[in-house]
C-alpha cells in the first residue's frame, strides 16, 4: 500500500501525509487506542494460546513483576507484555546507536521502519551485547509497528511520540485510520462476540491476580510505550467508548490473530482476512508481497479464516515445531536482530539487494520458519527480495529436465530479469509439503496432442466434439495410385526361354487320352456277348428240353405253413368269409410273381372262395385282373382297385375295409352284398393273401395288418429278391406262411403232389441261366486276379 485512505472523506493520500489533502483533517486523529477492544468473555482458544505461550524468561518475569508497572498493563495479554518488554530492550540498543539517526535517510525503507519503531523510547535498558549484526527485515519492522499500533494513546499525539508523520510507515497510518473508524462507529457491548468478552474478562482476572506485571520503572518506559499504556489503562472504557462494529472488530482481531499464529506456523499464512475497511489497507501489502505468492495456493476461502484458531492450526499440527517452541524462537530472535541492525554503520551497509541477500544467508532459520509471518511487511521498494521469493521455489535440482526446459523457460521469459544481487542468493529449496501440493499441470509433461486435436467437428453426427479424427482431411490426402507397366523388360533370349517353358506347360495341361474311352467298344461288345449267351442258354434249355434241375427234397418251414394254410382255407366249409387279395407288384416282375401266384389263386378260386382284390399300385389292379381272368367266376372276385395314399390307405383298410374302399372298379358298392356285407373289420376275412415283389410294401402290409388280424392268417407270395426281407416276419409268426419264387413254387408243387403247377423246363432254364452267370463271374474273376498277379512282377521289374 502506498496510499492512505482518509477515514473522513475517503480520499487517497500519500503514505507520508498526516492530514488529508481533500478535507484537511488529520488522518490520525484518534490513534489506535483500541487495539485490543476486548470485551466479554474469552474463548477457549485464546486461553489455549495463552497457556501455550512460552513463559518469559525469569529475568523478564522479574521485570514484569516490579511494582512500578503501570496498572494498565495488567489488562494487557501476556504476549503483548512480552513484546513490550522486548521493545524496551530494543529501544535501549537503539539509543546506543542514536548517532546513526542522522544518516537515516540513507537507510533502506524497511530499516527506516524498524528505526521508527525502535527510536521512540527515550530510555530503555537493552541487552544487545551478544546479538548478531543483521539487517532488520520487513517482517521485523512489522512486529515493531505492531507494538506501536498498540501503544498510541488517544491523548497522545504524534508530536509527543517524537515521530514525524513522514516517518510513519504505511501500515501505521492505516491503523490510525482504522482506530478512527472505530471511534466513529460505536458498537454496543452486547454485540461483541463472546470470545472477545471472554478475553476482556480474562484480562480483568489477570489484573486482579497480578496488579503489577511491568517491573520496569516509569522513567525507563519510553514515551510511546507510556502513551500506549495510557490508552490501555481502561480497557473496559475503551470497549465502551470505542466500540467497533462486530464485523470490523472481528476482522481486525483476525488480523491480530494472524500475527499471533504466524510464528507458530512457519508457513502459516493460510488465509488472508478480507479487506472490509480502508483501515485494513495495510493488509494489502501482504497480498502484494512476493513472499505471499508462494503461499497463495494455501489461502482458502474467507470462511476458513473465520474458523477458530485451533481449527486453523490443525493442518500444521504435524509440524515439528510446537507452539511454545516456535513462539519462543521467533520472540527470542527479535532483540539481537534489531540490535545488530542498529549496530551497523552506514558506511558498512551495502546496497539494498546485497544487504537483503546477506541477511537471508545469515538468517536461514528465520526465513525458513517465519517467512510467512513476515510477508506483511515486505516493502514494495525491494524488488530483489520479491524476485527471490518468486523464483526460488521452482529452482531445484530435483525438478525434471522438461520442467526446466519448457515450463520454467516460459515463466522465465515473463518474469522480470534477475538483478545482479540475485546471483549470490542460494536458490530456495521447495519444501516437501509444498512440492506435494504442486498442481498436476506443473508435473505433467505439457499438453498431450497436437493442434489438430483441438479442432472442433462441424458436421456429421460428431458435430461439436473436439478431438475427432479428421476423416475428411485424410481422405483428401489420398490420390489415385500411379500406374506402372507390367511389361517385363527382357531381351530376346529370355523371351525364347519363356516361350519354351510355356509350351511345356501347355502339353501338361492337355493330358493324355484315357484308355477307358478306347475300351468302350469292347465293353458294349462284352455286354452283348453276355446277353446273347444268357439268351441262348435259356432258349437252349427251354427248347431243347434239357432237365438239369431237380425238385427240392427238403421244404422250408414257411413253405410248409403256407401250404397248410391254403389247404385249410380250401377245406373250410365257411364260404361266406371272403379272402382279401392284396396285389402289390410291378409289371417288370409280373412273370415271376404271376407264375408263382397263379397256382395258389387257382386253388382258392376252385375251392369256391370269394375274393376282394385291392392294390396300392396303380398297375396292380390291372395285373390282378390279368391274374384272375381265367380262373374266377362271375361275382367271385370283387376288384376294389387302386388305393391311393400308400401306408395310410393300408391302415384304413386294416381298420375299416368298407370305409377305405367302398366301391369296386366299376363304381359298385361292394360291402352291402353277400358275402362281403359280413366284413366289418380286417379280421372278418377268411385270409389275407399278399402278393408282392417289393420289400417295403410287403413290410407296410405286414406291419399294418398283422396287429388287427387276430386269427386270420396272412399269407405271402413274394418274389425271390423280396423273400429274405419278409422271412423274418414269417419266422416271428406275423405271417402264416410264405411262398417265394420258383423254388417256393416247386416246393408247393411237391407238397400238393400235383404236377404241372410249375411249367416244364421253366426251372431248368432258370437254373441254367443262374449257372451261366455263376460261371462267367468265376471265370472273369479268376482271369483278372491272374492278370493282377502277372502285372505286379512286371511293374516291380520296371
Amino acid at each position, binding site marked *: 500500500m502506498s496510499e492512505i485512505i482518509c477515514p473522513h472523506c475517503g480520499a487517497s493520500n500519500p503514505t507520508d501525509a498526516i492530514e488529508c489533502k481533500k478535507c484537511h483533517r488529520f488522518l490520525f486523529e484518534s490513534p489506535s487506542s483500541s487495539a485490543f477492544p476486548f470485551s466479554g468473555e474469552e474463548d477457549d482458544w485464546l486461553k489455549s494460546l495463552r497457556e501455550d505461550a512460552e513463559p518469559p524468561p525469569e529475568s523478564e518475569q522479574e521485570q514484569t513483576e516490579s511494582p512500578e508497572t503501570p496498572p494498565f498493563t495488567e489488562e494487557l495479554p501476556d504476549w503483548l507484555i512480552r513484546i513490550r518488554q522486548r521493545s524496551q530492550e530494543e529501544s535501549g540498543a537503539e539509543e546506543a546507536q542514536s548517532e546513526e539517526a542522522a544518516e537515516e535517510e540513507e537507510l533502506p525503507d524497511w530499516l527506516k521502519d524498524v528505526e521508527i519503531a525502535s527510536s521512540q523510547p527515550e530510555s530503555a535498558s537493552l541487552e544487545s551485547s551478544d546479538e548478531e549484526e543483521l539487517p532488520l527485515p520487513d517482517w521485523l519492522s512489522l512486529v515493531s509497528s505492531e507494538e506501536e499500533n498498540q501503544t498510541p494513546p488517544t491523548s497522545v499525539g504524534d508530536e509527543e511520540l517524537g515521530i514525524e508523520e513522514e516517518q510513519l510507515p504505511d501500515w501505521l497510518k492505516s491503523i490510525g485510520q482504522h482506530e478512527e473508524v472505530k471511534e466513529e462507529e460505536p458498537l454496543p457491548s452486547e454485540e461483541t462476540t463472546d470470545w472477545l468478552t471472554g478475553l476482556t474478562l480474562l484480562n480483568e482476572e489477570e489484573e486482579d491476580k497480578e496488579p503489577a506485571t511491568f517491573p520496569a520503572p516509569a522513567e525507563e518506559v519510553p514515551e510511546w510505550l507510556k502513551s500506549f499504556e495510557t490508552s490501555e489503562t481502561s480497557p473496559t472504557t475503551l470497549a465502551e467508548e470505542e466500540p467497533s462494529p462486530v464485523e470490523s472488530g472481528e476482522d481486525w482481531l483476525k488480523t491480530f490473530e494472524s500475527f499471533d499464529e504466524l510464528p507458530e506456523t512457519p508457513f502459516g499464512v493460510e488465509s488472508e482476512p478480507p479487506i472490509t475497511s480502508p483501515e485494513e489497507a495495510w493488509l494489502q501489502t501482504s497480498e502484494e508481497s512476493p513472499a505471499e505468492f508462494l503461499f497463495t495456493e494455501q489461502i482458502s476461502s474467507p470462511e476458513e479464516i473465520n474458523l477458530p484458531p485451533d481449527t486453523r492450526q490443525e493442518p500444521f499440527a504435524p509440524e515439528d515445531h510446537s507452539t511454545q517452541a516456535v513462539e519462543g524462537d521467533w520472540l527470542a530472535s527479535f532483540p539481537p536482530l534489531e540490535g545488530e541492525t542498529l549496530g551497523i554503520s552506514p558506511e558498512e551497509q551495502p546496497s539494498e539487494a546485497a544487504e537483503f541477500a546477506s541477511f537471508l544467508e545469515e538468517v536461514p532459520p528465520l526465513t525458513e520458519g517465519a517467512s510467512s509471518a513476515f510477508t506483511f511487511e515486505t516493502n514494495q521498494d525491494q524488488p530483489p527480495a520479491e524476485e527471490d521469493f518468486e523464483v526460488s521455489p521452482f529452482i531445484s535440482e530435483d525438478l525434471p529436465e522438461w520442467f526446466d526446459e519448457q515450463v520454467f523457460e516460459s515463466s522465465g521469459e515473463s518474469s522480470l530479469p534477475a538483478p545482479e544481487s540475485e546471483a549470490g542468493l542460494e536458490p530456495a529449496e521447495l519444501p516437501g509439503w509444498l512440492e506435494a501440493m504442486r498442481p498436476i499441470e506443473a508435473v505433467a509433461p505439457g499438453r498431450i496432442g497436437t493442434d489438430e486435436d483441438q479442432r472442433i467437428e462441424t458436421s456429421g453426427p460428431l458435430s461439436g466434439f473436439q478431438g475427432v479424427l479428421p476423416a475428411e482431411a485424410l481422405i483428401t490426402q489420398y490420390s489415385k495410385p500411379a500406374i506402372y507397366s507390367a511389361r517385363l523388360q527382357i531381351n530376346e533370349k529370355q523371351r525364347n526361354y519363356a516361350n519354351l517353358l510355356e509350351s511345356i506347360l501347355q502339353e501338361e495341361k492337355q493330358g493324355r487320352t484315357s484308355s477307358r474311352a478306347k475300351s468302350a467298344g469292347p465293353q458294349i461288345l462284352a455286354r452283348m456277348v453276355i446277353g446273347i449267351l444268357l439268351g441262348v442258354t435259356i432258349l437252349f434249355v427251354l427248347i431243347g428240353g434239357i432237365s438239369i434241375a*431237380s425238385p*427240392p427234397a427238403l421244404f422250408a418251414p414257411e413253405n410248409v405253413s403256407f401250404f397248410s394254410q391254403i389247404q385249410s382255407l380250401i377245406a373250410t366249409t365257411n364260404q361266406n368269409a371272403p379272402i382279401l387279395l392284396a396285389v402289390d407288384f410291378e*409289371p417288370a416282375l409280373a412273370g415271376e410273381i404271376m407264375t408263382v401266384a397263379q397256382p395258389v389263386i387257382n386253388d382258392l378260386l376252385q375251392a369256391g372262395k370269394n375274393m376282394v382284390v385291392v392294390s396300392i399300385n396303380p398297375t396292380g389292379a390291372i395285373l390282378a385282373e390279368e391274374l384272375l381272368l381265367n380262373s374266377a367266376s362271375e361275382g367271385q372276385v370283387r376288384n376294389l382297385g387302386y388305393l391311393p395314399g400308400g401306408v395310410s390307405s393300408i391302415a384304413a383298410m386294416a381298420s375299416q375295409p368298407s*370305409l377305405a374302399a367302398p366301391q369296386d372298379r366299376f363304381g359298385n358298392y361292394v360291402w352291402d352284398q353277400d358275402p362281403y356285407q359280413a366284413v366289418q373289420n380286417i379280421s372278418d376275412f377268411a385270409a389275407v393273401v399278399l402278393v408282392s415283389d417289393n420289400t417295403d410294401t410287403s413290410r407296410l402290409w405286414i406291419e399294418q395288418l398283422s396287429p388287427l388280424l387276430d386269427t386270420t392268417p396272412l399269407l405271402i407270395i413274394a418274389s*425271390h429278391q423280396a423273400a429274405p426281407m419278409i422271412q*423274418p416276419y414269417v419266422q416271428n409268426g406275423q405271417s402264416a406262411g410264405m411262398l417265394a419264387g420258383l423254388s417256393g413254387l416247386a416246393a408247393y408243387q411237391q407238397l400238393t403232389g400235383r404236377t404241372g403247377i410249375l411249367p416244364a423246363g421253366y426251372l431248368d432254364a432258370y437254373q441254367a441261366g443262374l449257372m451261366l452267370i455263376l460261371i462267367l463271374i468265376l471265370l472273369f474273376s479268376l482271369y483278372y486276379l491272374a492278370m493282377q498277379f502277372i502285372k505286379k512282377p512286371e511293374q516291380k521289374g520296371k
Partner: protein
Amino acid sequence: MRAPISTAIAIATGLLVLFGAFLPIPVLLPIRQILLSWTIPVAATAGLIAILNLLSVHWRKLNSARERDYYSIFLLLAFVATFAAGLILSPTDPDFQKIVTHIQFPVEASLMGVLTVTLTYASIRLFQRKRGWLAVLFTASTILFLILLSGVLNIAENIPLVKELLAALNTLPIAGARGILLGIALGSITTGLRILIGADRPYSG
C-alpha cells in the same frame, strides 16, 4: 418358433392316431378313422401333383436350349395317349388294360433282362476295378447265394452234413434282413418321436 400352428396340429394329430392304435378308447377310434380318411385324398392329390411335376420336367427338358432331351417327347406323347384313352374308354375297359398288359408289362420285363445282363457284366469286371477284401467278399457271397437259390444243391440236401450246412447258409440272408429291419424300426420310432415333440417339422415347408 417357426410355424407354430402347423406344428401343434401335427403333434395333436400324431398323438390322437397313436393313442387310438394303442389304447382301447372308443372315442379315439372314429377320430382316427376320420383323420385317416382325410389322408387318403390328400395323398391322391399328392400323386396327381407328382404326375404334373413329371410332365413339367420333361416339358422343360424338351424345350431346353442347352441340352434338349428328345426322349422326353415319348413320355409326353405316351401320357397324352394313355390319358385320352382312359378318358374315352374308362380304366375298367379291357382294351384300356392292354396298355398295361401289352406294353408296360413286356417293357419292364425286358428291362429286367437287361438288368440281369448288366449286373452279370458288373460282377465279372469287379476284380478288374476293385481289388481287395471287399471285392473278394462280395464276389464270394454272390456266388454262394446264386448256388443256393438256383436249386442246384437240391440233390445233396439229403446228405446230413450238407443239409446242416445249407440250413446254416440260408440263415445268413435272414440275419442280414433282420438287422436291416431293426434299423428301419429304430429310425421310424426316432422320426415319429421327433415329429411328436416338434423337433422335426417337415410339414412347415
